[in-house]
């Protein structure tokens, strides 16, 4: 049985308790998010005007909001949106960022300079304005939300990948591939990108929390998800409004968000340590 660097990394990851906890929590979360329609005790729109702002009880584990809607249910549905946005937006950023960065880094020269200046300019634009402009122009649309968020994250991914590619470019195994006559596109696809996957995967797990937070922020500002749909951001936003009289309405979604972010960070850190080939020397 041969041990690829991936399987070595996997074994090292398995030894990292925090990372395992993070991964386990995330898997649990994703599972309940998928199963939400079946496990949610109430509909997310179901109002019960008799029981508004109710404290947590057996009937409503997390209490109810100002319209009597079950908070637990709302958090579940909100989770679906937040997680989906987070994951999809991050995938968009990875796809665009990796290809852009790899090409820029490998080709180098003037192409690289131009491509990176474009990144610099885009970086300088405050993302919130960009998203607001997009939202105003195209109307509020969940699909648009994740494309917009994805497009703001790819910049850093591109820079990271470009940096990696530049340091790999002069490695001897890349020169060897050139010497042997491998076509440039295959060098990028088969040699460069697999060897940059380490930082990419790690950054991906750190991008997802970032995107979720941005979505929460946008929704908090009223720019993201529209009522009656919920995301953790909107839930937190409503929670703030009634913070003094019903603190649990802020507490539960905020806690869910925090736990998710912690888990993603632990996993990200664990992956970074596991994938670091220097760790193999241990």
């Amino acid at each position, binding site marked *: 049985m*041969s*041990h*690829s*660097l*991936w399987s070595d990394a996997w074994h090292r990851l398995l030894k990292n308790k925090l990372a395992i906890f993070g991964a386990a929590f995330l898997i649990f979360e994703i599972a309940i998010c998928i199963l939400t329609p079946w496990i949610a005790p109430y509909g997310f729109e179901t109002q019960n005007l008799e029981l508004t702002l109710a404290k947590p009880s057996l009937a409503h584990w997390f209490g109810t909001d100002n319209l009597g809607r079950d908070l637990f249910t709302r958090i579940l549905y909100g989770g679906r949106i937040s997680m989906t946005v987070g994951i999809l937006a991050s995938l968009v950023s990875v796809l665009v960022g990796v290809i852009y960065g790899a090409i820029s880094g490998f080709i180098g020269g003037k192409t690289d300079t131009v491509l990176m200046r474009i990144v610099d300019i885009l970086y300088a634009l405050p993302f919130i304005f960009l998203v607001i402009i997009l939202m105003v122009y195209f109307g509020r649309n969940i699909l648009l939300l994740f494309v917009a968020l994805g497009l703001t994250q790819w910049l850093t991914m591109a820079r990271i990948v470009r940096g990696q590619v530049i340091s790999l470019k002069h*490695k*001897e*195994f890349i*020169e*060897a*591939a*050139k*010497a*042997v*006559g*491998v*076509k440039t596109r*295959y060098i990028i696809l*088969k*040699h460069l990108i*697999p*060897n940059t996957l380490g930082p990419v995967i790690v950054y991906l797990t750190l991008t997802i929390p970032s995107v979720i937070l941005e979505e929460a922020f946008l929704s908090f500002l009223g720019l993201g998800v529209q009522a009656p749909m919920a995301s953790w951001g909107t839930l937190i936003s409503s929670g703030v409004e009634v913070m003094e009289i019903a603190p649990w309405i802020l507490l539960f979604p905020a806690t869910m968000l925090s736990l998710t972010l912690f888990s993603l960070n632990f996993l990200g850190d664990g992956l970074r340590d596991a994938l670091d*080939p220097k760790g*193999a020397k241990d």
Partner: protein
Amino acid sequence: MTPTPLLKVEGLKVYYPVRSSFLNLGQKSFLKAVDGISFELMPGEVLGLVGESGCGKSSLGKALLRLQDPTHGKVEINGQDFLSLKGEPLRKARPQIQMIFQDPYASLDPRMTVEATLREPLEAHGRWDKNLGTKSIQSILETVGISRQALSKYPHEFSGGQRQRIAIARALILKPKIIVADEPVSSLDVSVQAQVLNLLKEIQKEMNLSMIFISHNLAVVKYIADRIAVMYLGKVVEVAPKKDLYSCPQHPYTQALISAVPIPDPKIEKARKRIELKGELPSPINPPQGCAFHTRCPIAQQSCRLHSPQLEDYQSTSWKVSCFEVKP
């Protein structure tokens, strides 16, 4: 009829532009890594290229493989102009000349199996036969002494010597006519060096390969080369058949170099008188006027400071020396 050279190099220069300092605006400086090198390589011949750091031997190797494009000069392989090729025709011509790199830990992609690494060159040139499958790879692995179990393994599962053998297999798999070996054993332990050297020598003889063997280790080069060229600051200062170079080196730098190499024999070592070179290696960005070696040469004369010597025949056409003080 004199045989035609397999590789012909004329006036090869590799100059790297150096950013001029703020005070030197407009003045372009160049790092002259390779500064006008010409030689010929016959089929089946091994040319050793020796020199210390900064002499340009590695840059020359890379330039020959078009991994670093030369700024001037001519390179002909089998009579065909190699430098003017670009894009697809260049890629297709690459199988003729292959390289073995110095660092066996860096020259293999850590995320590819041995099979994938060896298949890649074949696939790149449409030589991978699905029906034959790995049989074509297995025979080359046998030649370098690696068992076929290695195919599914990754580079980090092998020792340095084994990785270098795999790298040699990769260099051979396209059946090149010329191999450029860039310090192929320098990163290996002494006991393993001998194994890989013997392997290279065997393969070279059996396949009648032409080889350019680059090394800073004179004893290693002596073992494998037929003719040896000594480089200093981007130029060849002496090139001679092996026996001649080591028994009576003519160029003062060659003499100093040979005298500096320690010999594993205490009696000889303790009795030796070494030729000591004064000073330091000048920067290749601003090589000295006149003969590049004159600043450290024990026999430098006035004329050496003003004029640059050229390689001239010494006693035969296969022995050339570039020094005003050496008269045939």
